[in-house]
């Protein structure tokens, strides 16, 4: 990869006020939750529930807008003797790394400051994984649409689907097929939603069965805690690799 391209795209993003505001909002949120709640594991769960909404939204919207804003610069880089794949990789890594840094400062720092131990660490891993996943999805939605408005529209639809509609669908499936052995099916369904995977990974660690919900309970029953965590991390990795793989294939053939 061309390190200088990555480095300076990263610099450009870190100088962007948006990343700063993102960190500050996350930090205010984390500190207030930690201050208000007394139970540290509850605080982690509350922060988790918030970042499960915020990270996908920010990564999708900001990622898509950033890609369209970078179009002319990408075009410039494409006229240089560089491989197309490397330009895409540099753009993706720079954006995911800068958003992850924003998250680390905004959530990781307060959580570590209060010594929330292993569950805090899992929270950070989950947040960073989600950042990489949803930045990949943002880029996928950008390379799929030449038109900016359509690209942002698709990103919003992805967010709505994965945060709201999907849960409703899973609930319906569970409600109607409760009498059947649908455990395996539920696990497959869950792996189709990276947000659910993040939640399960976290809850398997904190071990609050009451908050785990049906999918979480199924996961734990089926895999046990450790294998369950490994499986959810594996699925999350797939959620990074697959969108990127498809995006690069499209990007290589895109006319600029």
């Amino acid at each position: 990869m061309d390190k200088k391209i990555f480095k300076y795209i990263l610099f450009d993003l870190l100088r962007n006020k948006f990343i700063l505001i993102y960190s500050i909002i996350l930090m205010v949120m984390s500190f207030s939750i930690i201050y208000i709640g007394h139970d540290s594991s509850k605080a982690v769960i509350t922060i988790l529930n918030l970042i499960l909404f915020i990270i996908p939204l920010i990564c999708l919207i900001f990622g898509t807008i950033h890609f369209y804003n970078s179009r002319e610069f990408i075009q410039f880089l494409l006229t240089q003797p560089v491989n197309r794949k490397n330009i895409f990789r540099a753009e993706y890594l720079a954006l995911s790394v800068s958003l992850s840094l924003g998250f680390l400062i905004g959530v990781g720092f307060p959580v570590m400051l209060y010594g929330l131990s292993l569950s805090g660490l899992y929270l950070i891993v989950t947040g960073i994984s989600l950042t990489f996943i949803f930045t990949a999805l943002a880029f996928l939605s950008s390379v799929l649409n030449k038109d900016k408005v359509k690209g942002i529209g698709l990103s919003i639809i992805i967010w709505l689907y994965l945060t709201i509609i999907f849960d409703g669908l899973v609930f319906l499936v569970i409600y109607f097929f409760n009498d059947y052995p649908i455990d395996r099916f539920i696990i497959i369904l869950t792996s189709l939603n990276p947000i659910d995977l993040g939640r399960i990974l976290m809850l398997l660690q904190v071990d609050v069965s009451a908050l785990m919900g049906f999918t979480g309970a199924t996961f734990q029953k089926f895999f046990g805690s450790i294998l369950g965590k490994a499986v959810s991390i594996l699925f999350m990795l797939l959620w990074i690799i697959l969108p990127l793989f498809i995006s690069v294939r499209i990007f290589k053939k895109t006319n600029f």
Partner: protein
Amino acid sequence: MSYGKFKALKGIDLKIEKGQVAALMGPNGSGKSTLLKSILGLVIPESGKILISGTDIKDGYLYRNNVGYMPQIANYPENLKVRELFDIVKDIRNGFKKTDEELIEKFKIHEISEKYFGQLSGGYKQRVTASIAFLFDPEILILDEPTASLDPLSTEIIKTKILETKKKDKLIIISSHIISEMDELAGRIIYLLDGSVKLNLPVKDIKNGSGERLGKAITRVLSKSPKI
């Protein structure tokens, strides 16, 4: 070649020798930019081949070491410094040969090297773009309406540079609407219409000793052509 459902270029067969300035002309939407972009690999042809010094450009990206490009409008990340952009392009060609910094000096890029692109006007950005296009002394220069957003003084600097570069036995392809400018610079006119080449002649053949202005001469030659 097509953009989505729209065919921008059809059945183009062109061979351009080095050591000249070739002007690519034609109305808006005639395929000038698409042709230039396909030489750069920005647009990928559906069929056909583009050879540079006998090598198919599909075979790799290294040929772009020897191609300089100036788009109509260039935009760079707002929070990137001018110096950093130069750093990137030099790093891309690591082990680059000696650079040609004449334009950097004439355009006084050093004075703005610590500025962010977000602070620069369109004209300044275009000067940076021009400096980079000529920086590595490329064999082929592709200039897409290079003077469109430049002030008269900078335009003069670019024109002089183009003529000097031509003397070094390089190929310069310019797309432009400004006929008077092409009259000064170009040795060959390639006229595109609806994605096909309507005219590809040296300027002296077009004028044919008539002493006309280039614009008039082109119109005369085009009107004789039976295809129109």
